[in-house]
């Protein structure tokens, strides 16, 4: 469709390595105005790296970079912004202490002739833009006070309305509810029809096929396929992504999933009437050993707050917690850890030390059990190596800084932290968000084997697939209250979505 026009962006033979690990090997990539270009590939396949090169995040690479037919080199993200390129990163990058309006107009605040910021105009226009996108919030409230999903939507909105001619979206839909995804797609189509070039990265193949004109598949730092979206199928794309014979891995959950009868094993955790200002209302439940309790709900339903109460980061206004029959009031996350609770938050940045080696990331939560006053680095490394092997973390060098690992492998490290001494209760927030099929499957296997070992596991997610693939029993959380429990019955994705 776009063959007649010339590409706005043309990359040739792009190669990029991090500390000797090649993330991209000789990749060609062309982007045309007025197209949505979908990128798929497993974690670490090189999609995000290529996009970060385009956005000026990685100024050093080899290969040719042509913008508007002229050879260009961005030295920073500033250069790329000036050239009309905007990107929504996989990890949230907002200013939580600024207002919603300031975030929407970040760096481009409307000013009057004296150079003073026109606050009222900024608030009004931000409110209008967000409303067009289906977001209704007070533009002057502090962004950090909003739920993470809403923050992500606002960040997307900011980029979409920034007037950029090239827009890159890296996993934008993972935290969004279906109606939000629809609104996003409608906006993307409008922008595309107006001539904007859009790159869309996602692990949701349906989303890719739905919104893209062209689809490019990455594997191991190489481009393995490029095709018109209309001319391919989900099965074909998955095959290109991961090689033949693994299509069965991608569960669609259109059929019913049978939930087993309730566990008769001992209760590990009891929550009684947990309430927290506007986030949670009278939430009560029990988690049993050898059982995965799924807690499903849309963004902002109170999951994030609930998870933080369970790990002692937030204190409920009302309600109590019992761990193994004893009432507990956690004063800190250290208390919760000592009570045998492990926690993996939804954001890897909040969990891992990117500038520290892998082995220090793995050992941090168990240092008091493997050493007394003096550290035992040899033991730490041995433990880390065992975890790296068991969870198949790549690359296998435990001395490598964590920041050099791909997202999926970082997520495995976040799990590995807790597995050397299995906790009583494992609280997982969005354990498979932003992960490719293979890594997702790895995580599912890890969680199942932990359940077999007798752990109580709570999985909180906004993705129905995640809950359906993992949970033995499902609670649906809506506006801070438990509205439905599914146990010992057959359930499908539709019914789960309906309940929320």
């Amino acid at each position, binding site marked *: 469709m776009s063959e007649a026009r010339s590409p706005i962006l043309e990359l040739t*033979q792009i*190669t990029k*390595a*991090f*500390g*000797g690990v090649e993330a991209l090997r000789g990749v060609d990539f062309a982007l045309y105005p007025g197209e949505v270009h979908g990128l798929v590939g497993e974690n670490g396949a090189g999609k995000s790296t290529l996009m970060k090169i385009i956005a000026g*995040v*990685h100024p*050093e690479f*080899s290969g040719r970079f042509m913008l508007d037919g002229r050879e260009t080199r961005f030295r920073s993200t500033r250069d790329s912004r000036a050239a009309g390129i905007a990107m929504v990163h996989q990890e949230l990058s907002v200013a939580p202490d600024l207002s919603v309006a300031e975030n929407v107009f970040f760096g481009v605040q409307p000013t009057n002739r004296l150079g003073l910021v026109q606050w009222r105009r900024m608030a009004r226009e931000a409110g209008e833009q967000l409303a067009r996108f289906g977001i209704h919030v007070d533009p002057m409230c502090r962004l950090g006070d909003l739920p993470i999903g809403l923050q992500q939507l606002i960040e997307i909105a900011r980029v979409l309305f920034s007037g950029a001619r090239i827009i890159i979206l890296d996993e934008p839909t993972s935290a969004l509810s279906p109606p939000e995804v629809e609104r996003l797609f409608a906006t993307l189509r409008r922008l595309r029809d107006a001539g904007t070039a859009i790159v869309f990265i996602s692990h949701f193949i349906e989303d890719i096929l739905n919104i893209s004109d062209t689809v490019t598949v990455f594997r191991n730092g190489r481009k393995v396929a490029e095709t018109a979206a209309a001319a391919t199928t989900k099965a074909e794309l998955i095959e290109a992504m991961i090689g033949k014979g693994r299509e069965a891995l991608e569960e669609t959950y259109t059929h019913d999933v049978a939930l087993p009868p309730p566990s008769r094993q001992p209760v590990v955790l009891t929550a009684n009437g947990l309430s927290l200002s506007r986030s949670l209302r009278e939430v009560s439940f029990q988690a049993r050993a050898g059982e995965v309790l799924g807690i499903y709900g849309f963004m902002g339903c109170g999951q994030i707050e609930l998870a933080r109460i369970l*790990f002692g*980061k937030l204190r409920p206004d009302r309600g109590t917690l019992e761990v193994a029959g004893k009432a507990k009031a956690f004063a*800190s*996350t*250290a208390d*919760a*850890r*000592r009570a045998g609770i*492990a*926690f993996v*938050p939804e954001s890897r*940045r*909040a*969990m*891992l*030390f*990117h*500038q*520290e080696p892998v082995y*220090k990331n793995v050992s*941090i*939560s168990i*240092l*008091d059990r493997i*050493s*007394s*006053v*003096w*550290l035992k680095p040899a033991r730490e490394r041995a433990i880390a190596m065992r975890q790296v092997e068991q969870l198949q973390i790549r690359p296998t060098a435990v001395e490598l*800084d964590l*920041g*050099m690992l791909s997202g999926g492998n970082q997520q495995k490290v976040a799990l590995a*932290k807790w597995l050397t001494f299995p906790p009583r209760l494992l609280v997982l927030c969005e354990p498979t968000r932003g992960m490719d099929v293979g890594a997702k499957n790895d995580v599912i296997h890890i969680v199942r084997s932990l359940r077999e070992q007798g752990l109580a596991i709570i999985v909180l997610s906004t993705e129905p697939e995640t809950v359906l693939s993992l949970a033995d029993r499902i609670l649906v959380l809506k506006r801070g209250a438990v509205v439905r429990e599914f146990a010992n019955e057959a359930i499908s994705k539709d019914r789960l979505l309906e309940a929320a």
Partner: protein
Amino acid sequence: MASSDSAAVHADHRKASGKIAALLRSQMRNIAPFLTLILLSAFFAVASPSFATIDNVGNILTQVSVTGIIAVGLTFVILCAEIDLSIASIANVTGIAVAYFTAQESYVNIANIPLPGWAAILLALALCAGLGLINALGLTLIGIPSFIMTLAMMQIAAGISALLVRGQIAYKVPDLIATLGSASIGGIPWIVIVAALMLLIGHLVLTYTRFGRYVYMVGGNREAAEYSGLNVKLILGSVMVIAAVCSGIGGMLGVAHFGSAQQNEFDTYLLDSIAAVVVGGTSLFGGRGGIGNTIVGLFVLGVLNNGLDHVNIDSFLKILIRGLILLAALVINVYAQRLRAKAAE
């Protein structure tokens, strides 16, 4: 084809030199201060014949000792991405307190409380630990930013000092403190030995103990430390107390070293200690650096102060030069952080 071959060769070259460059970038924070130290030493050695002598090296060591003792604790605080502005005031009040509890000569007009030497030392240590604990509680329980909390403590400690000496000067300190502060053994001043020991202990704690690892991790990513189940508040509180106690020890020995205890005696030590830690390359953003960096920073400052005396420079210009060197170090500190972040990407 030929052009693509030469491009490949070119890329290989870039890869090799890129690796060295990446290593240099990631080590910038350690290399730059060390280079500064070597350059400064070389400059003064050429500029003044009296600079590079054994005697003068001894002078420099003695001159940086009090700063060194105070900087040990401050290194812990800055590694946690916090700051302590009360260190010099706490040093001052602890030095005054130890003199206050010691019998003074009859001509000293201070209404003091003479106690045995060991009691005076213990009380002075309890005082600085107590003030550090107040810093810790303000920071962790109330949530006052350390910058503001310790600014208040700076005034509080100065106020206690003023009340204790009331503008007078005390001279006597317990014998142990007098010995450690002003005597020598085998030609080596005790104060240098104490400073070296404290720096060594600080290094061992930071590098080889669990607590030291926690300090680095809390400084590197506080949120992740909390979600890893560390007691972040306890760690932050501990470093504030450590900083206050190190300052107190520095204050007591300093009083003995100077031969008197009086108001505002340690004012320059606040800037000097912060400068030593930061010039040495410990990151103001936390998580990077250590006692090794602090030692290099101490020598940079020590060589600079001492060397400027040897080259007979206008003493007013000295102050300006020190300020400029500090600025340069801060610039390097921030850039090193950025380069490191890039290398880690």
